[in-house]
């Protein structure tokens, strides 16, 4: 059904998005928790930084990444000594996708944490639970629908990432050419329209599947919380 090239592009996109989402998930949870529960000087600044990729042109984010993480820069050199090549690799594409999707993830999770009845968390503490135990047994399970929504939104955003990726890691077939980049390339090629259209259909299908999964998980979690009383 899919040509080897198409399959390649699809698998690469899924790989890039999966790692981007998986690696930003724990960081997203921590940031969302801190923003939801703590007041500290500079909170506005942190909040602003987290949201920056949402409002900046993606090309700008990609360019900033190129400047800070390029293989000849300080951070790039340290990373490449550690065996991680970011520049013009699929890992770099993951980094770009993760940063672009981060605000969406944090927003959904933060909202979920803020919605929890904090009296339940206090009850857990009086029952002997450490903050850690409370977090994993009460707060995170109760916020699960929101955490799931945030994760799936972020995954979908990663799949669609274009501007920052092409600016930061270029458009290398088999390495950084994800679905949107492949579509773009094909539309730029004479007679590429038909092939581009096939990829567009694949994109729509993936998006619909992601939305359906999100809906199912949210419903299940809500039923489990038993709050339809």
């Amino acid at each position, binding site marked *: 059904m899919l040509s080897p090239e198409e399959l390649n592009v699809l698998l690469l996109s899924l790989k890039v998005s999966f790692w981007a989402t998986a690696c930003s998930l724990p960081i997203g949870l921590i940031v969302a928790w801190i923003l939801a529960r703590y007041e500290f000087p500079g909170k506005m600044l942190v909040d602003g930084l987290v949201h920056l990729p949402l409002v900046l042109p993606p090309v700008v984010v990609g360019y900033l990444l190129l400047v800070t993480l390029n293989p000849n820069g300080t951070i790039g050199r340290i990373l490449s000594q550690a065996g991680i090549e970011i520049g013009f690799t699929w890992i770099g594409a993951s980094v770009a996708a993760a940063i672009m999707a981060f605000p969406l993830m944090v927003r959904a999770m933060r909202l979920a944490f803020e919605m929890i009845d904090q*009296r*339940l968390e206090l*009850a857990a503490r*009086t*029952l*002997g639970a450490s903050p850690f135990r409370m977090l994993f*047994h009460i707060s995170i*399970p*109760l916020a699960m629908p929101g955490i799931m929504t945030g994760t799936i939104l972020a995954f979908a955003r990663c799949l669609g990432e274009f501007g920052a990726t092409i600016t930061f890691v270029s458009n290398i077939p088999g390495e950084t050419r994800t679905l949107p980049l492949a579509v773009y390339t094909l539309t730029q090629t004479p007679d590429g329209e038909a092939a581009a259209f096939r990829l567009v259909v694949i994109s729509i299908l993936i998006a619909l599947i992601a939305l359906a999964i999100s809906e199912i998980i949210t419903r299940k979690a809500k039923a489990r919380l*038993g709050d339809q009383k």
Partner: protein
Amino acid sequence: MISLSLRKRFKNSLLDLSFSSEETGITALYGRSGAGKTSLANMISGLLKPDEGFIKIDNQLIFCSQKGIDLKPENRGIGYVFQEARLFPHKTVKDNLLFSNRSKTPKSRPLSIEEVVEVLGLTNLLDRRPGSLSGGEAQRVQLGRAILSHPNILVMDEPLSSLDQTKKQEILPLIERLRDEFQIPILYISHSMEEIIRLADRLLIIEDGSIAADGTVEELTGRLDLRPLTGRYEAGSVINAQVLEHDRHYGLTKLKFAGGILQVPFLEADKDTRLRIRIRARDVSLSSTLPDKTSELNVFRGKVKEIAQPTHRNAPHADTLIDIGVPIWVRVTRLSIDRLSLQPGVEIYASIKGTSVDRQNLAARKGAKAP
């Protein structure tokens, strides 16, 4: 045992109180809404930080502003029973009960979930989720969850106030059983004198952020000066009694109390069982001579101790305190006071209608002092 002395300033009020409570049994904290009761419970359990003072439980300081001690809620060993059940909605009843991972304290005996489930009647609820429980069921689960956290002391903040009368009657005996079977001291915060009289041994009255009175329930309910504070419940006296014998033929039970022997309708209680009984002021009548032939079974000789000022100028009644070995309240009209020339020191006969001591007002009390 808990002893504390705390100060906390709020926007419009000040909480400044000290007290210490007994090793076992229930100590009640009574106060009207807004008296600072919940703030006190929150400070004891570590959810609210006092400005200064100390809290000591079984000789361990859990908070002390001077020494900079402020244990986290999870390290205080205090079981907190909230007004609302606060069950974890994503866990089954069983998992709620088993939530606490606090290891048992040296003092408390090991409790098994089976035992607690049995006492609180939770067997059929174990697999349910909190969302499907009724208010009374949820509150029972909360009691079990708190007990199973092996606390050194249980703090209950108006645990019955969100329940209707029938549900209250269902939970009250359970709290008594917790007190008697698990031997955990309980600090019972409430604005219901009915509940306090039924449950508590000792009573502390909070008014305007400080302790206005401290004594046994029997003492404080007999004090005239506290009437304005506790007056919301139906006026009556609380006395301790002990089952002496049963008269099966007439269906009566004889109770021994400090004033003599009281005959009441048959009670399903073993001989020597100690009880707390309540005599409503309107169920007592007075006469200046010993009634010759009367249908009253319980006539006691006593002296007038105090006559309360009528609540307003044209009030028909004036409550009178009669000492018949224990102080009891009598509700008489002002006309009768003049006719019988009642004044402190006058000798008088008080008739107590046997039926006024109904079962509802009786609480089996292992810890009650002998009459």
